[in-house]
């Protein structure tokens, strides 16, 4: 089966600019996750969708980050405006039903803020 697809792979922007990431989960997977992974740390959950509804977004900085999963399939994560501390790898993952199932990760988007 095709894996989780993410784009772009790399993005370099200046602070205060906007950026968007795209994720296409494994076909049929109901749950989609966005994680932020800062170098040397574990993935930090930003938002979790179950189909097109939000299950958890408690760690999403809502003043600058937004995410949507229209139609319960692919998803976009946006940062506006970006700050220096947003430099990280943004990982998208999906699982078939919920977090009781293995998560399958995409290759991530490496974001650098200048």
């Amino acid at each position, binding site marked *: 089966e095709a894996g989780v697809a993410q784009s772009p792979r790399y993005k370099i922007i200046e602070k205060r600019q906007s950026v968007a990431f795209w994720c296409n989960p494994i076909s049929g997977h109901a749950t989609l996750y966005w*994680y932020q992974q800062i170098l040397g*740390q*574990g*993935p*930090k*959950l930003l938002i*979790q969708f179950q189909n097109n509804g939000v*299950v*958890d977004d408690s760690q999403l900085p809502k003043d600058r980050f937004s995410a949507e999963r229209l139609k319960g399939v692919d998803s976009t994560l946006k940062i506006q405006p970006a700050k220096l501390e947003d430099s990280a790898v943004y*990982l998208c*993952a999906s699982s078939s039903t*919920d*977090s*009781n199932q*293995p*998560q*399958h*990760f*995409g*290759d*991530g988007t490496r974001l650098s803020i200048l």
Partner: protein
Amino acid sequence: GQQVMQIPQYQHVQEGEDFTTYCNSSTTLSNIQWYKQRPGGHPVFLIQLVKSGEVKKQKRLTFQFGEAKKNSSLHITATQTTDVGTYFCAGRGSGGFKTIFGAGTRLFVKA
């Protein structure tokens, strides 16, 4: 809130030596998952433990879930250079929906 802690942060071993990483949760877990992330790669699912005291093996890897379902360990016997990477535990709290990742243990193997 729920926290998942892993030790050690780093481990350097000679090829052929054993390796163990430990994971501790501040709350009781409904399950714990283990992932491996190679340098420059993304986390890859290894295994999930659900039952109290559960032990599972995958070739040279042995995974344990504590009796109280608050801790877990991953043990690698006779490490190989292909074992290099960061090992993460990820725990889902009882009654919760989300999985919290530990900070990971980075394994270095010297040939």
